[in-house]
């Protein structure tokens, strides 16, 4: 038996023992395991599962063990993911700390910072949000104005952030702040702020979908200890760019799966609404539209796989994250547009009688999908990045 085989065997046995039965069922939105100081656990198993996995560092399987991570190799992690998949286990912890901040800390933070913050993330103790965009700095992110003044033993922070995901439910925020007003990109620093500190206030924003996953976050005379600066002073833009790559690949991944699947698949919805001629969707133009879309989706999925294979072989696809963000989100938006076309009036409900839960969810998801090509850098910004970094087209 190889070492990997015995790892698989041991993992399988451990999961059998430690993954509660209810954590092997489909996860309702309200049971998402975000963790954090304000977390509520409508299903107590959620917390048990999180703690069990965190005890092995398996909420962050590939992070170094010295910081509380699993310390697994790529191959071991693959085995772990396969075994988790085999028992249909829910994620033990979902968090921006895991997806975005953690990788950036591993690369840029001091030893003390890694010790403190990574462990908190892994154990799901602190829920993080991202303070990047500002009312006056969207696509032009580096134009941000939130100021951090050096006051000797601390920074005094003043400004306003926007589109901070779930800020009203988060504990800490990682922020881009201006520490030099005389230059643009080279005057930005990366600062960690405790949202319990005086002067931090988050207000939810109501979106077209009716949901409020984002907030405005106001920072008024917030005193931030100097040790909360990550990386060098005025070098925050480097960290910001790296973090955006994580965010972009995360959002492009959203292009797959959800939506039509809940309705039994695009083809089934089409047949239900436009009739079936044997196996075929009876309306040929609808059939072509469905096929066209499914081909695009398949092509995108293959491209994700190719990028993975090339990365493994030590080859790079260039500004791959930007390409995936652009293409993936545009495909996802087209998917919901087509799904609404197929569903007709049943996609037009807002709430109440006449529509089932899945139909209402599709309508809301359609509205939510519009943000995919805006958040994390608009499609236009992604195209700029490709034009500049991959194609070498000159600036004006």
């Amino acid at each position: 038996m190889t070492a990997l085989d015995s790892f698989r065997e041991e993992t399988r046995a451990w999961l059998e023992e430690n993954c509660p039965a209810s954590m092997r069922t489909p996860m309702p939105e309200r049971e998402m395991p975000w963790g954090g100081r304000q977390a509520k656990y409508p299903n107590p198993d959620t917390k048990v599962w999180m703690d069990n996995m965190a005890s092995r560092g398996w909420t962050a399987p590939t992070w170094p063990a010295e910081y509380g991570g699993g310390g697994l190799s790529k191959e071991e992690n693959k085995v772990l993911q396969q075994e988790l998949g085999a028992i249909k286990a829910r994620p033990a912890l979902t968090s921006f700390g895991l997806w975005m901040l953690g990788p950036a800390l591993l690369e840029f933070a001091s030893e003390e910072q890694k010790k403190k913050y990574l462990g908190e993330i892994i154990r799901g103790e602190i829920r993080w949000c991202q303070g990047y965009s500002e009312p006056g700095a969207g696509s032009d992110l580096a134009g941000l104005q939130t100021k951090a003044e050096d006051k000797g033993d601390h920074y005094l922070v003043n400004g306003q952030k926007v589109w901070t995901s779930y800020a009203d439910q988060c504990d800490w925020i990682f922020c881009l702040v201006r520490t030099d007003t005389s230059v643009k990109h080279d005057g930005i620093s990366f600062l960690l702020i405790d949202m319990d500190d005086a002067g931090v206030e988050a207000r939810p924003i109501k979106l077209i979908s009716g949901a409020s996953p984002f907030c405005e976050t106001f920072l008024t005379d917030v005193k931030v200890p100097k040790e909360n600066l990550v990386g060098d002073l005025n070098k925050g833009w480097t960290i910001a760019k790296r973090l955006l790559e994580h965010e972009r690949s995360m959002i492009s991944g959203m292009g797959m799966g959800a939506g039509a699947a809940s309705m039994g698949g695009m083809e089934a919805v089409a047949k239900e609404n436009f009739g079936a001629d044997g196996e075929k969707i009876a309306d040929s133009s609808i059939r072509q539209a469905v096929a066209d879309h499914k081909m695009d989706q398949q092509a995108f999925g293959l491209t994700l796989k190719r990028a993975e294979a090339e990365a493994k072989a030590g080859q790079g696809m260039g500004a791959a994250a930007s390409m995936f963000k652009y293409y993936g989100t545009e495909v996802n938006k087209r998917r919901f547009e087509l799904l609404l076309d197929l569903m007709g009036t049943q996609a037009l409900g807002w709430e109440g009688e006449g529509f089932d839960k899945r139909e209402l969810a599709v309508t809301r998801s359609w509205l939510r999908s519009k943000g995919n090509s805006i958040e994390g850098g608009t499609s236009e910004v992604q195209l700029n990045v490709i034009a500049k970094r991959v194609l070498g087209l000159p600036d004006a």
Partner: protein
Amino acid sequence: MAFVLTEEQTMLKDMAKDFFTEQVPVANLRKLRDAEDADGYDKAVWKQIVELGFAGILIPEEHGGTGFGPMGLGIVMKEAGRTLAASPLYSTAVLGAGLIMAAGSDEQKGALLPKIAAGETLTALALEETNHHNPLNTAMTAEKSDDGFTLTGDKKFVIDGHIANTLIVVARTGGAAGDAQGLSMFLVDAKADGVSITRNHMVDSRNAASIGFANVQVSADAVLGSLGGAYAELESSLDLARVCLAAEMLGGAETVFDTTLEYLKERKQFGVIIGTFQALKHRAAELFCEVEICQSVLLDALSALEDRRNDTPRAASLAKARVGDALRLITNEGVQMHGGIGMTDAVDVGLFMKRARVQAQMLGDTNFHRARYADLGGY
């Protein structure tokens, strides 16, 4: 799944790239066109292609080939597409070798494959009868005669039809147009009595012919594959050819994209390089994404063929359709971004756009393959 080329495949690619770039540049096609060359291909170039082993790239070594398989063939076709290289590669090394390997008897393989690999026999597939590719709609008949069959009917859009020695003819020995049952294939000598071949001058300056069959007599051993049941063998070979065609098309798309990008970096208007304009930058970036997406579907389709995967037909239709869409966009944008000069015969981009139109129609256009993709997906 092979998304990354092996060392051996990379060497093949480099060799093919050097060869086509240096020995068969686009100027070669212009020369054939302007000289109104009767054959429409350069015999000296074909000889070199044969010597490099490309004619027999699909053919196993026991039959005189190099046995590189579908992936190797796709790699070569892509490089040929980059320079619009006019040669019998597609008609003979892809379709001819593919069909005979898939459907031929041991005798037929032994007789024909070594000659194909040696470049001595050129083949052409006589399949199309209507304006749109649809093998099931074949109406041409082959009637049983005393010691063989009598072929009667008309074929069109036969690629390399006027230079081939051996025609592979699809005809009905049963059933009616629309039926899969009753289709058969025949090996017919191009010089046989009753065969009349007319070369068609195509918009891409490449070879195609219309061929009439008037009571053409063939013997029983001219049947290629199973009598009345050749549809499956035909389709699997067509899928190979569709993917190789997609490879050739993507090669063309890459060249047009590269040259257009170069042009954006050197052309000045309003006192600045036009590549600084965001309207053009975004379109160029979109074309880049198209090329990348197409690389993925092409490599997947080639590995499907290589590994004889069950979903090969779907992968082939995906490749032909998706690359077809991208090539149309890229050649049209290429002409547009070149501006007035793009309308002239002096630059190559127009040649690629004309070739793209022909390639789109070969073995099924995007509409055909979208519908087929849906069929195979069960919807």
